[in-house]
């Protein structure tokens, strides 16, 4: 069986940044497995600019941004397998994959990084009543058709959902000569970034209908029209508010779902809110040696944060693989077994024992991190204060729009952070920085709570 220190599943922005930093952290053999025929993930079809402001201080297009990380990871010495699909990851980190050239093969990984990204919520999952003609696509599929394949899915367009891809596609289709009738959003707020609403809708006079939804699709073979209606506070259509649009194209931008089929099959614990793995401050999942970053972990708005997060995951994965190589994990396993009164020469350690050994290397003290009162989730869910970096960024999303509210962090019942925020909205990921100095100073604390407090 082939071996690698770090195997990264997915060659999008997360996988590329993780690969570069795993190499920089000393991992010898870093292998990125990508199912597409090129690296860069969804960035390859995002030909608009606006990427990289945080990372590079300039506005790059998606392919340009991807290119920087492709160069960086290639120069660092990462290896890539394209057109290759991972079928399975076992609990002991044997990755099964396939392609047309090598057939079906397995790689034993020192550490695995899950970086599979996300997919769009399809029409079926939205349960929109009506006919099922052609002309209904997710915004990302339309983006691929136009930007990569050079084909127009329609000329008269309605977009359901104000996610960022939907907003970007409203502008893109307009520039390609289509007429975008409206962007229709079920919620009373947009789920996209403010700057995209201004640059993609306002600048092109495209109406954004908040608290509206598509209640019917029409047309037997090809889409001929949609009916839109206002929704009440219960998100149910209000009779009498129907608007009809003649259109040949309905695009859906109604949310992104992390692609965790492989993670679930491997037994990784999934957070039901993010639909992504539960991770600690090193981005390690519930399975020792399996890490996760990017949109498969939680859906981001900005690729810069994906790269930053993935860079850390890559470094920690490399350290894990090194610890295993050095025999440190095996030594810790022996200790765990000895504590349980078992002979170290006996049967192999159980999954729990492997995990306990892994944790042993991380130091004894962990605090739980959780969201409360408007904070829907946090990444990470645990911080090991003995071995944590000097600073840990806790990222989260809120459940509704808050104006002038306070963002607070409590360590058990003691408030350790309190800051007034002009606006917090579900469409924009929020973050708070915690320092090792602060957390180490209160070793007795067990739980950190991030919450929104209104005056």
């Amino acid at each position: 069986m082939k071996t690698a220190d770090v195997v990264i599943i997915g060659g999008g922005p997360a996988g590329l940044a993780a690969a570069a930093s795993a190499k920089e952290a000393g991992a010898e053999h870093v292998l990125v497995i990508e199912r597409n025929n090129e690296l860069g993930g969804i960035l390859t079809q995002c030909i608009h600019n606006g990427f990289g402001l945080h990372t590079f201080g300039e506005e790059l297009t998606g392919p340009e941004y991807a290119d920087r990380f492709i160069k960086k990871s290639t120069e660092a010495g990462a290896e890539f397998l394209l057109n290759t699909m991972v079928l399975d990851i076992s609990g002991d980190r044997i990755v099964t994959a396939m392609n047309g050239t090598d057939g079906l093969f397995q790689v034993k990984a020192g550490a695995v990084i899950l970086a599979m990204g996300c997919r769009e919520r399809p029409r079926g999952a939205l349960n929109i009543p009506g006919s099922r003609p052609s002309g209904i696509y997710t915004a990302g599929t339309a983006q691929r058709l136009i930007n990569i394949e050079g084909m127009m899915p329609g000329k008269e367009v309605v977009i359901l959902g104000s996610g960022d891809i939907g907003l970007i596609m409203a502008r893109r289709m307009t520039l390609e000569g289509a007429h975008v009738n409206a962007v229709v959003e079920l919620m009373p707020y947009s789920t996209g970034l403010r700057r995209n609403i201004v640059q993609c809708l306002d600048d092109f006079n495209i109406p954004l209908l908040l608290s509206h939804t598509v209640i019917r699709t029409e047309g037997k073979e090809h889409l001929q029209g949609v009916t839109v209606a206002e929704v009440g506070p219960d998100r149910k259509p209000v009779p009498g508010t129907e608007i009809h649009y003649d259109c040949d194209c309905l695009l859906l931008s109604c949310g992104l779902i992390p692609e965790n089929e492989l993670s679930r099959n491997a037994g990784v614990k999934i957070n039901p809110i993010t639909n992504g793995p539960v991770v600690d401050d090193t981005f390690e999942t519930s399975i020792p040696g399996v890490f996760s970053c990017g949109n498969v972990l939680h859906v981001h708005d900005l690729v810069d944060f994906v790269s930053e997060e993935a860079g850390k995951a890559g470094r920690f994965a490399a350290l894990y693989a090194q610890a295993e190589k050095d025999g440190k994990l095996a030594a810790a396993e022996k200790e765990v077994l000895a504590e349980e009164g078992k002979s170290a020469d006996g049967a192999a350690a159980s999954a729990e024992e492997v995990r306990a050994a892994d944790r042993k290397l991380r130091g004894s003290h962990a605090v739980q991190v959780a969201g409360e009162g408007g904070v829907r989730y946090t990444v990470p869910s645990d911080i090991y204060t003995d071995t944590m970096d000097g600073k840990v960024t806790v990222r989260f999303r809120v459940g509704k729009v808050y104006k002038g509210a306070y963002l607070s962090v409590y360590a058990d019942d003691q408030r350790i952070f309190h800051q007034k925020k002009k606006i917090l909205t579900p469409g924009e990921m929020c973050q708070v920085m915690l320092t090792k100095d602060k957390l180490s100073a209160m070793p007795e604390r067990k739980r950190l709570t991030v919450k929104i407090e209104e005056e």
Partner: protein
Amino acid sequence: MYDVVIVGAGVTGAAAARELSRLDAKVCVLERGEDVCVGTSKANSAIIHAGYDPKPGTLMAKLNLEGNEMMDELCKDLDIPFKRNGALIVCTDESKMGALDDLLKRGEENGVKGLKIVRGQELRSMEPNLSDDVVAALYAPTSGIICPFEMTIAMAENAAENGVEFFFNSKVIDITRDLEGLYHVKAGDKEYVTRAVMNAAGVYADEVHNMVSADKIEIRPRRGEYCLYDKEVGSYVSHTIFQLPTEKGKGVLVTPTVHGNMLAGPTSDFITDKDDTSTTADGLAEVLDKQCISVKPLPGRKIITSFSGLRAHGGTGDFIIGEVKDAPLFYDMAGIESPGLSSSPAIGRMAAEWAKKTLGLSGKETFKKTRKGIPHFADMSFAERSDLIKSNPLYGQIVCRCETVTEGEIVDAIRRPLGARSLDGVKRRTRAGMGRCQAGFCSPKVLEIIHRETGLPYDRITKCGGKSTIVLEHTKGQTTEEAEGEGKA
């Protein structure tokens, strides 16, 4: 001249075609759609019923039982996935137990084997996710689940391999009978002359029948809406769970599909438009509401799609099958609603018997009864997958991530007899696009493969025939030719 023209390439027409292909006869099938299995046969509960439900003495009862018994051999010969998962007809009201007993007696009278009433712990251990209200159930072990597309396609492919001709986009517009008693069937701009006609036109069977007979029939489309759940909840129940019919109606069923999803439905509404397979807010709400009568609530977020299908209701309480009185050698296979899918192999066999008796046709030695399906990469072992990729590297390339469908399977679906020409055609044959992303990722790739394999320009490749094109034009208003020309330059 044809011996038999079959109108309709749904499951009934395909079954008839396959059975007739055993005979030394010239047979063709005229289908208005762009593919086989595009009408009633494509959207239904996908159940092979045990046969306890039809009224004893009816054709429905007889053909359901025969069809059910024929399934094992048929599926083995034609490489169709089929599973006898058994059905439970649940009763949620102790005072209605009499009705459950009646159903048991009716089933036994119809000849259904293995029926029994189960209760209490035995029932709960068979099906832990039944709702708490369920007091007892009739267990029918011979009930099964099948993929209606694969069943129809397999029979049609086998018929085609044995010499039956298929003509698509061929809507029958007129049928006349000449002085010699031959039928002239006009479809599209062509005319087919034949000794006999078999009418398997589904919801349009009345229109076809009424072209030749003064004794008019009416087929009313009855629409049923369904919700399909993600494979993640595919083992929520293992049997097909029916509700005991009450004065409020037949109720909705909850069943695993043979491919591992969970299906709930149908509603039952008469409509007037025979092409209207749209879903409605009320209908979908009804499915979600009524499924909870028999099972504990399924997680709504796991729905991956909803759809509706039409059932061809003949209004006679039975199938309308047989030679039309005032039109010799014109045979109806009409009003084929539930249990039509289950009965279809037996209806097909009847068709062959008619042909033998009245047309004097006999069997042919060259008949090849087996057909090999498209390899299902997703269901294979490590070694099988390895060998397949070695034999053809296209099997090493996954196109549909959700259902693990390879490029090799898609190419096979296009190249084989009666091959796919549309996205839905590929989907029904390979499951590409049938998973949780509902073709979001794979449709551009499938489009490219269809273009490469068939030479069809991109702007003429459809989702499901007719005007259902996927792309309107190339950007900058170019045609495929222009766009490719530019690419080459």
